[in-house]
Each structure stands twice: as structure tokens, then as C-alpha cells.
């Protein structure tokens, strides 16, 4: 049982990462690909936060009478990564809007045989 509890978070992380990976390479629609990319990204966030967790610890905000805190460093890295992630997602979505305008479609197999318009 403890073997499962020790590794459960990492297994789910791998599952989510592979689900995102599968969507990115198998989906034909570009918006869905972006969703897949985001799922992939969130799995990495989950990985970092899982590594920072200390059993019996609390949120890293100093308070009297508390001695065990979870690791604040992964929190800092992931907090900024989330905001940067949405900003880069926005760039991806903007590119999709331009692709739609140029080719009239966002399905990958439909515009790959069209000539270069951009």
C-alpha cells in the first residue's frame, strides 16, 4: 500500500503527460492540440508541486507554532510558469486565428496540401 501512495502522484503525472502528448500528436484540430499542450504543461506543474510536498507540512507562510513547511521553491517556479503558460497559449491561439483567416480551416490535414499563403 505504501508503495502505491509513494508513487501514485507520479503515475498520474505520467498519465496526464501522455494524455496531453497523445492529443498533441493525434488530434487534427489545432485548438484541440493547444488544449493537449496545456494538459501536458499542467502535468509538469503537478510533478513539481508533488516533489515540494512534505507530509505533515503546511503552506509556506510563516506562522507561530508551526515547524514543518512544504518547500516554497517549486511553488515559486510554477506560479510564474502558469502565467507565462497562459501568455504563450495566447500566442498559439492568435496564430490559429491567423491560420483560419489565411487557409479557411484549422484542421491540420486540410491545409497541409494547400499552397503557402503566408
Amino acid at each position, binding site marked *: 500500500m505504501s508503495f502505491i501512495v509513494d508513487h501514485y502522484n507520479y503515475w498520474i503525472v505520467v498519465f496526464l503527460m501522455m494524455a496531453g502528448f497523445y492529443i498533441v*500528436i493525434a488530434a487534427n484540430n489545432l485548438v484541440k492540440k493547444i488544449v493537449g499542450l496545456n494538459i501536458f504543461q499542467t502535468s509538469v506543474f503537478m510533478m513539481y508541486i508533488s516533489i515540494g510536498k512534505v507530509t505533515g507540512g503546511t503552506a509556506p507562510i510563516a506562522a507561530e507554532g508551526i515547524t514543518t513547511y512544504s518547500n516554497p521553491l517549486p511553488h515559486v517556479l510554477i506560479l510564474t510558469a502558469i502565467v507565462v503558460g497562459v501568455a504563450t497559449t495566447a500566442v498559439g491561439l*492568435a496564430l490559429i486565428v491567423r491560420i483560419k483567416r489565411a487557409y479557411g480551416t484549422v484542421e491540420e490535414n486540410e491545409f497541409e496540401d494547400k499552397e503557402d499563403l503566408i
Partner: protein
Amino acid sequence: MAEIIDLVLLAMLAITALSVIFLKDLFTVVMLFGIYSFLSALIFVNLDAVDVAFTEASVGAGISTVLMLGTLALTGRKEKANNHKAILPLLVVCVTGGALIYGTLDMPPFGDPNNPAQQHVAPRYIQDSPQEIGLPNMVTSVLASYRAFDTLGETAVVFAAAIGVLSLLGLPKQDRAAIQSGLQSHIVLRVVAKMIIPLIVLFALYVQFHGDYGPGGGFQAGVIAAAALILYALVFGLPMATHVVSPNLLKALAAIGVLIYAGTGVVSLFLSANFLDYNVLASDPVAGQHIGIIAIELGVGITVFAAMLSIFYAFAAQAERKNIQ
């Protein structure tokens, strides 16, 4: 108890991700992704990462969902069925996943206080930062002081992404004759929005300035403030929103935020300390740290607010142009 919550929430997350794979209706996919973000936020709370949960709830479930819906409005809601077989991708994913699962068997046990990650710099941050920086929230101390250079880079990336979106899509013109748009006819929505928008802005300011003591900070505050104006734009229409906060002002604000951040670093350089070393900003090092952190959090908040709102304006202007045509 926390382990059981963790177990259930992570399983729900996996189910949500799985259903995204099979669904063809992109509107549902985007909504599920919003749920996915909220579930992640809950898991982050359970894993003690309250600041991260805050960010994920406001960014992932709020801004991302709005932007994806904006894209769907322009590109269509249905994913077309594709005929080509997905066996090769499945094979690649299974092999990679199997290798990664094998790798996790060597990972140190989850939550063990003796894990290598807990032995490196974290003890110093946890033990010394409340005295050295004078703030109870260690995440803010690390984000804004110990690793301020890192955060400067991330703020610059947000700024650069906003520039990227604006150069791809362009901002709405402010002087365009206001057309009837938004959800003006929904009177309940209009009254409720009017009532809660000031509260959202107030909450954003609270998150901005209370971030040193509790969860929060510039990143979250900027996103929440942007969400208030996005709500305004959704209910009252884009022309009204651009009347309140003009696109040109946003362009300036995005740059001003980065300038405030970098400027704080330059000031400390002139006071003969290292770049972004706040100890010299006041006679007392702890007071100096306070001034520095408030200044750079303000810079982060302004840039994130301006970047998120101008990205939304760019998408909304595209959708509006499509409606006119």
C-alpha cells in the same frame, strides 16, 4: 485524510483528461479544460501550494477559458472526424509512458521530508527568509527577492507574448462608432455585473498589496484585475470597455510595468549594490526589502494586467469584426 483527497482529485483529473481525448465538440473540450484547471487548483491547495492554486484558478480557469472560447468563436465549434488511423501515436505514447513509469519507480517517496529536493536551498529559505526579508509568505520572499532576476525574465516573457499577440491580431481601434454589442439586453446580468465589478477590482488590489503576508501577489492581482474588465467587456461590449481602458493606455502600461521592475534593479545598482538587491533601498535592510518587493510586485501586477487585457482585446476585436461581416 489528505492522502484520500489527493487520490480522488487526481483520479478525477485523469478522467477529465481522458474525456478530452474522445470528445469532438470543442466547446465541451474547452469547458472540460476549465474544470480540469479548477481540479488542479484544488490539488495544489491539498499539496500546500496555496499561491499556485490561486494563480491556476484565476489564470487557467479564467483567462485561458475565455481566450479559447474567443478562438472557437472565430474557428468553429466542431472538430471534424478524421479518417487516418491513430495507432502509431498510441504506440509512441504507450512506449514513452511505460518508460516514464519505469523511471518513477526510482523517485524518492512522495512527501518524505528527507527527499533530496527538501535538502538543498529550501531549508535556508524556510528558516532565514522570515527574518532576512521580514515577510511571512516565503513564496513572495523567494519570488520577489531571492529569485527576483528570474521573475524579471518571466515578466518580460509575458510582455513579449502580449507583443506577439498584438502583432498577429492587432488591437481594436478606439474611435470606432459604438455598435450594439455585448449582452446589453440581459438586465439581470447587467445589474449584477455592475455590482460585482468594483468588488473584483477591490479584491485585486487586496491581493496585490496583501501578497506579502498571505497568498497572492502581482501575478494573481494582475490577472484578477484583467478579469474584472473582461467581464465588463463581455457584458457591456468591447467599445464600452475600450472607452474605460483604452488600448493605447494598455500598450504603455505593459511597458511601464517591466520598466518599474527593471528600474528598481537599476536604482539598487546606483546605490552601489547588486542588481535587484533591495537591502540598500532604505537605511534598514529589512525596510529596504519591503520597499523593493512592493515596487517590483507593482511592476509585475501592471504588466500582467495590461498584457492579459490587451490579449483579450485583440481576440475580442477579431470576433467583433467577424460579427460585422
